[in-house]
Each structure stands twice: as C-alpha cells, then as structure tokens.
C-alpha cells in the first residue's frame, strides 16, 4: 500500500506554476550574476594585463619609471642581430654611441631601420599630475557651490516657485550629456572669456558637470541630521546661522564628504568635457614649471583619461604599444577604483555609526 498522500490545503505540490517560478528565479539570478561577471571581466582583463606594466618581479616591485617619467616615442629596431626597443632619449644616445664606435673602427656609420610608436615608451607622470590637479580644483569649486546650495535648499528654502525652478534645474543638469558640457565650456570659457585651453576652463566645466551630484549628496546628508538638533539649538536662542554652523554642519559633514567622493570618481573619469577645455595631447613641461604664477591657471595639462583615448585610438594595437595602453588604463582604473571603493565603504561605515 502506498504512503497516504497528505490531504490538506497547504501541502506543497509540484505543479507547472512552481516549475515556472523556479525557472524565472534562476533566470533572474543568472542575469544578475551575468552583469557582475561582465563587469569583473573588464576589471580583471585590465588589472591582469596592466599589472604586468606597473608591477615587476624585483625590488621595488613597482615600475617606478613608468609612474615618474614623461611619455616618449618608442623605437623598435634590429641591431647586430638583436631586437631592441628604446625610448626616444635612449635611442639617440645609443645611435650616437654606435656611430662613434663605428667611426673609431673606421667603418661607415650604422644604419638603423626603425619602427616608431609615439607615446609608447617612458611613463605617464604628467598625466597623473594633470588628473590630480583637475580633480582637486574642480571638486573644490563644486563642493563650495554644491554645499552652499544644499544648505540653502534644505535649511532656508520654502516651497516657492523659485525654489522649485532651482530643483528642476538641478534635476535637468544631471541629465545633460558630458559632451554638451564640453561644448559649453569651450564656448564660454575657452572662446568667450578667452581663457584658451586651460586648467581653469577645465575646472569650471567639470565642476558644473558634477554639481548636481554634490548638491543631491549634500542635501541627503543634511536631511539625515534630525530636526531635534536644530530645534534644540534655536530654542536656546541661537540664530539660524549659529544653529547650522554648530549643530547641523558638523554632523552632516562626514556624509557630505563621503557621498561627494563618488562625484570625484565621476570627475576623474570623464573625458569628453576636458577634450576641448583643458587637455593637451602632449606637453613637455610639468604644470609647475611656469614663469608667472598666473600662468599656472591658464595652461593646459595632460590628463589620464584623455591619454587613454589618445593611446587607444591614435596608435596601432600591437605588442609594443600594449604596454603603455594597458599600463595607463590600469593606473587610471586603480585610482578611480580606490576613490569609488573608499566612498562605498565609508558610507556603509557611516550608516552604521550615525543612527539617531
């Protein structure tokens, strides 16, 4: 006799519906992990191949010249049966030495049949410097403007048409494509204000682009401060500004800063806005090698994202150029990843710490 089938309405029966449900569940799980795998593939590829450029087996384990030198042209040639790769400066020195040696031996000067690849030797130091300068400057501007706007919107503003217009503008500004910011910066700063391609133009363009992110983040942080803090302070006779300064901002500041780090990652990562406003393809001088202090602000710089664009589109893909291409992408991604990761971790930490 078979075991009696339990016969009550809550029994689990395998049915077609349950099968479909299981299938849908697994489909969605697959979609989720597919996205994660795709993202990690990109990261993994660049970290693996870029790591070969940036790290090395012997002491100091990091490829210091790559991080501290300016880009150079790479010469690939054959000399006395050996395949050689030399940067621009080394190649000239080598050629002179070889010529001198041949002359001493009474032979004709050796001929070098070279293939050259621009930017493929040397390092990316000027790009790192330029990116840091761009990020620091534009984020300072964006933070000042953004935090002040957020304070107004959260602490002072009432629901008037003017304030609604401001909120609408912020929402819409967040949706403007970055290349349009680039055009705008070009039209306003580079041409109309005649700043030329300069740090200053890049700063303002990037700052305006990231402004909505900073405002939204700051407002959220301000909102998280409980109302009681303000009311208590006001009840003790403090003015509005004293309340904000002593009783709101100190508690909101960590939140503002951590959320704004995400803005930093965005600023560091954007290429389109600086293409016509701040970035040079190549520049020999480092930014602080200027004659006047004012020149500092009106000079273009090299920047990592733009350099990646240049090395990946303007020079061919082969074994000699992959070194600099992947190396640059690695360094850039590393910087952005550290920024983004620290923001995510800090925020999770803060969420746990501040609970009113």
């Amino acid at each position, binding site marked *: 006799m078979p075991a009696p089938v339990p016969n009550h309405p809550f029994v689990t029966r395998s049915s077609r519906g349950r099968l479909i*449900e299981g299938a*849908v*569940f697994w489909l*969605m799980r697959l*979609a*989720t992990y*597919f*996205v*994660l795998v*795709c*993202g990690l593939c*990109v990261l993994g*590829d*660049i970290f693996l191949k870029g790591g070969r450029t940036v790290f090395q087996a012997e002491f100091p384990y990091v490829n210091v010249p790559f991080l501290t030198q300016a880009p150079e042209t790479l010469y690939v040639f054959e000399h006395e049966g050996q395949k050689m790769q030399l940067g621009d400066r080394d190649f000239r020195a080598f050629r002179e030495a070889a010529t001198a040696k041949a002359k001493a031996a009474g032979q004709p000067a050796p001929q070098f049949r070279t293939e050259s690849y621009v930017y493929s030797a040397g390092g990316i130091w000027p790009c790192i410097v330029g990116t840091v300068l761009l990020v620091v400057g534009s984020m300072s501007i964006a933070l000042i*403007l953004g935090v*002040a*706007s957020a*304070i*107004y*919107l959260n602490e*002072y*503003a009432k629901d008037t048409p003017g304030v609604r*217009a*401001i909120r609408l*503008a912020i929402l*819409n500004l967040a*949706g*403007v*494509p*970055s*290349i*349009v910011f680039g*055009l705008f910066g*070009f*039209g*306003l700063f580079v041409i*109309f204000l005649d700043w030329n391609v300069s740090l200053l133009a890049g700063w303002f363009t990037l700052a305006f682009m990231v*402004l*909505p992110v900073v405002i939204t983040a700051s407002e959220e942080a301000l909102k998280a401060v409980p109302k009681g803090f303000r009311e208590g302070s006001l009840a003790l*006779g403090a*003015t*509005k*500004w004293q309340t904000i300064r002593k009783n709101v901002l100190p508690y909101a500041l960590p939140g503002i800063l951590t959320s704004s780090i995400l803005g930093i990652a965005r600023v*560091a*990562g*954007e290429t389109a806005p600086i*293409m016509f406003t701040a970035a040079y393809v190549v520049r020999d001088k480092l930014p602080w090698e200027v004659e006047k202090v004012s020149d500092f602000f009106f000079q273009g710089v090299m920047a990592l*994202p*733009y350099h*990646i*664009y240049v090395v*990946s*589109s303007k020079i061919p893909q082969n074994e000699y150029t992959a070194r600099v*291409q992947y190396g640059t*992408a690695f360094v*850039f991604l590393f910087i*952005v990843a550290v*920024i*983004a990761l620290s923001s995510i971790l800090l925020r*999770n930490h803060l969420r746990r710490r501040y609970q009113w």
Partner: protein
Amino acid sequence: MSVPPPAKAPAFAIHRRRTRILGLSLDQCIQAFFGGHALTAVIVLTLITVFLFKEGIDFFGQNRENLRIYRQSGMEYVDVLRELERDHTSLTRYLYDIRLRALQHLTGPGGRSLPEANAALADLDALVERFGDAVVPIRGFVSDYGEVAVGIKTRFIENQDFAEAKRQYLAAGMVAEAEAITVAPIDFKAEVAAITGAFPEFEAGGRDLAREVASTVQQLPALPTPELQHRLERFQQLAREYAASIDGRLEQMRTWQWDRPVPATQAFTAFIFGRQWLTASFWQDWYGIVPLFVGSLMVSAIALSLAVPLGIGAAIYVNQFASRREQQLIKPTIEFISAIPSVVLGFFGIAVLGQALRALSQAEWLAWVPGFPFAERLNALTAGCLLALIAVPTIFTLAEDALNNVPRAFREASYALGASRLQTILRIIVPASLSGIISAVLLGLGRVIGETMVVLLCAGNRIAIPDFTQGLTAFVQPVHTMTGIIAQEMGEVVRGSIHYRALFVVGIVLFFVALLINFLAQKIVRRHRISIG
C-alpha cells in the same frame, strides 16, 4: 567725596545692535549668500542654452548661403546627372553581385573549372558589358560640366576671401593695399548658361541611355539556379524602372533655374532631414543629422535591449529573492561597475571585446544569427554591448529603488489571497512600481545616448545610414553618433566656420533630446506615483 563711576551695565545679547548690511540683518545676508549659490544650477543651465545657441545659431544662415551657392554655381544641375550615373552604378553593382554568385555556384563543390564556368557565363558577361557601356556618355558630361561648376564655386569663394581681406585692410586704414585688391564679380547667369546650354546634349544622352538600358535587359540569359534567375528578373525590373525615370529627370533639368531663391526653412530642413553628413569634400558639403541620429538611436537600442532585461531582472532578483548577504555583495559591486570610466570601457572594446565578438560571430554554430559573421571589428554591436554595461547600473539602482518603495502591505495582501510568489511579483509589485521602472529605463537611455567615449572608440565611426534593407544585419555595421562626431571633429575645425557651427547645432539637438528624456522620466514618476492608503 567722589562719586564712584557707575558700574558698567551688563551686556545682554538682546541689546546688541544688529549689524545691518544694505538693510539686511546678518542672518538675512547669510541666507542670501546661500541662495545665490543655489541659483548656480539655474544660471549654468541658462548659460549652456545661451552659449550653445550663440555659437550654433549662425549655422542656419551659413547653411542657406551654402545651399544658395550650390544652386547658383550649377552644381545642383549637374547633380541630377551625377545621380543618374550613381543609380546606374548601383545597378551595375547588383549585376556584378549576381555574376559573382553564379560563378560561385558553378565552381562550387563538384562543379566546373574556372575557365569553363566563365565560358558558361558568357551571355551574362555580354549583358554586363553592354549595360555598363550605356552610361559612358553621361559619365563624360558629369566630369566635364562638374568641373565647370566647381570652378564657378571656387571663384565665388575666392571672391569672398578677397572681399574679406579688402574689408580688413580698410578697417586697418591701409587704403593702398585695399585698392590693390580687385574683386571681379561673377555673372552667375552667364557662367551657368555654359552648363545649361548643353541641355540638348544631355537630353540626347539621356534618351540614348534610356533606350539602351531598356533594350539591353529585353533578353535575359539563362542562369543555373532559379534563385539567381529570380535575382536577374528583379534586376530587369529595376533597370526598367530606372530607364523610365530618366524622362522625369530630364524634365527636372529643363525646368531648373539658377536663380530660384533658397527659402530660409530649407537651411533648417536640410539639416534635420539631410541624409548626408559630408565635410571637406571637393564637391559640396552636406550637414544632415539623420545618419548621426540614426546611429545614436541604433547604438542605444542595442544597449537598451541588453540592459533592460538584465538591469530589471537583477533589480527584481535582488529586491525580491536574494538573501541579505547576497544583497550586500551584489549592490556595491554593481555600484562599483558604474564607476568604471567610460574611456576605459572604450579601450576594453578596442583591445578585447571587438576581436572577441568578431571571433564569436565567425563560429559555425552561430551562423543563424542575422548579420553573423561580420568583418568589422568596431561596429554598433560592440559599442552597444559596452553601453549596456554603462546603462545596467543606472537602470538597476533606480528600478531597485522603485521596487523598494512598494509598500509591504501590497505584497502581504497578495500572499494572503493565495497568490504565488511569481504572481505577486508580476501582477502586484512590478505594476505598482512600473512608473519608477519606466523612468529608470528612460534615464538609462539618457545616459546611453549622451555617452561619448565608448561610441567614439568602438562604434566604427562610419558616417552612413545603416542599410536596413537587409534586416537585422544593420546592427553589426559601423555607425557614427551625434556625441562621437562632436568629439571627433571639434578639435579640427576652424572656429566660426559652418562646420564648427554645425557641430554646435548637433550639440543643441543632443541637449534637447537629453532634456526631453529627463522631462519624460520625471513626468512619468510624478503622474503615476502610487497612492498608499
């Protein structure tokens, strides 16, 4: 006895005189200060609009001038003939294609040798040759009179340059130098008459062509397969249509007038509906946004068709099924993916994905996919896949928020009525958060359509409207996009030239498309917000 000095009255804060600046108390000043900063967003948005228009608006005037000179120099007239020739060429190409297929069929496995196959196609070759020769006289006209038209245009532009130089000399007070420049005016009527005067020749040539084409395709050679025969019959039909269209074109040339004014709207419509974006050409520059717009749309369509199922699926999974620990793993990772800079993704596309996709497309078992295999490494598909990776985090985050906002009570009520989990999700939770999900998709679209570096690096950058006649194969063709063209050409153009202004107008279009998408997303969220209670 001296009176002791009165003790200093205690200072109460309440008695302190308020500092006033311009009639405002300190607190009001601070408020105004912050309010001023808050206005930045409005000001920036206004400035963007103003400067885009300031640089771009002159384009329409310049484009009208561009079109006017195109007409007055007689290029428009010659273009009718050119088009006649071009259509003929495309027919010839069709014929060559048939011949190639027939040859492949004949020399295929177990087939004949090459000379035999060629011999078998002798009839077809005769047709090809006769058809090709028919257009020779027209080709001669095009090259001869095209040169005349280009000459007129060149002289006109030179004159403009001279006039400009003269004006500058005069403005600088250098009268002698200004006097030295003489601008010989161009008599368009007489010049163009040199071209239009040859109309009887054109007419005779056109008639000959029509007759020749019609008689050539009268007799069709036999081809080995019915499929090829069918293609040849199709060719016959196309060739007859072509021959019949020649009369209309001749009529168009007969009634053509060099001095017919170019209406102001045409400068606008030529941009919006123009099917060519052609710059720095020897003949005539065209600024039509359609190929770029279609390219942008196509890349976005690919990206969204990948990103929407993935993003929304992931959002539903994380929100409804995933355990807490899984959530804590997935959410930050996706957020992290969104931080990958687009230029790095573009580089990845060039270095890895392009090759990988091409290799995948050449796999045997995928041959049924339309468009596979493809030869171009960088095309709309490559760019679309990478853009999908950009759009997924946006869609995921916003859709997850929307799902989160559905009140718990909805779900519980559904379970209480005996609905299964899947039913609850599909019938209750997703519809309740639909507005949020749609706006998430729209914002994802906004993100994708405005993305520059990925499409600039990976979309292939060929300015042409993809050939949709072949169905889905259009999606693996290289395209160019609105964002890409700005990024690519802005660095090279002369400031103030028509090309420069055209790029700004593309920027204006992009700006308003982005605003429209944003506006729709907000409107949908606001209108369909679920009311709880």
